[in-house]
């Protein structure tokens, strides 16, 4: 296929087709949600930054979710032995990433002084670890015994490189955004979501130091 989008797509035609399907579905959902937001904005005052972030997140999470569930990340894993080996590798990588993230984040921001600080570190670290941890999004798999090569494709579904890149991307953006004094923290996200829905400040009144 001769298109600039081919750069983002895998070489294998089945994977390419599935990715195109996921990206198209994500684009349609994004289109519908943008129209909905346009209509709603006539009645409710919406924070631009939060809404843009939510739409980006909707697209990214939908495409990533479909990719994970489809099982096209690990195409060569068929036997239970290979699955266990790969799972071990992913567990080690996830744990390592989470630990390094907590250490580096604390080194840059300092150890948290309040509950929001711990939520910032813990929430993001756990989320990143969860996205990378295979069994959290475990779906039924079918394995067949090896006979003169692999007989049938395995329908193993696990987050892999994409989830790692997504988590890393978020981690890097946190580092850079801290330096720009625009911290994309859990607290920031939460408060903005509350702002979005809490028109008469009922919820904010219940939160200390909000």
């Amino acid at each position, binding site marked *: 296929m001769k298109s600039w989008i081919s750069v983002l797509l895998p070489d294998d035609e*089945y994977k390419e087709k599935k990715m195109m399907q996921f990206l198209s579905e994500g684009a349609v959902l994004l289109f519908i949600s943008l129209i909905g937001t346009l209509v709603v904005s006539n009645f409710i005052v919406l924070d631009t930054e939060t809404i843009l972030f939510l739409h980006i997140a909707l697209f990214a999470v939908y495409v990533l979710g479909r990719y994970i569930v489809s099982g*096209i990340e690990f195409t*060569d894993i068929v036997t239970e032995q290979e699955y266990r080996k790969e799972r071990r590798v992913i567990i080690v990588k996830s744990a390592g990433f989470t630990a390094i993230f907590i250490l580096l984040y604390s080194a840059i921001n300092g150890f948290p002084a309040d509950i929001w600080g711990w939520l910032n570190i813990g929430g993001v670290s756990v989320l990143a670890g969860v996205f990378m941890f295979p069994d959290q999004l475990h779906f039924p798999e079918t394995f067949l015994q090896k006979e*003169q*090569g*692999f*007989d*049938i*494709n395995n329908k193993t579904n696990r987050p892999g490189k994409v989830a790692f890149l997504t988590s890393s991307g978020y981690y890097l953006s946190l580092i850079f955004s801290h330096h720009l004094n625009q911290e994309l923290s859990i607290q920031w996200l939460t408060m903005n979501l509350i702002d979005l829905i809490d028109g008469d400040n009922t919820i904010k009144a219940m939160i200390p130091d909000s």
Partner: protein
Amino acid sequence: MKNNVKKSRINKDITQEQLAKRVGATRQTIGLIEKGEYNPSLHLRVAIAKELGKTLDELFWEVE
């Protein structure tokens, strides 16, 4: 859609992974083609046929 890809591949004594590497696909794709769950492009069919030394008819004509 049934086909003779698996039978021909086994006769040639090559694995799905080997065939996949030679035709520029993944093992998963070859597996899906053999199961009849994926309809490959003409380009891929020709590549598989060349690799297995068969014609398109012999590999992909509908098997009863």
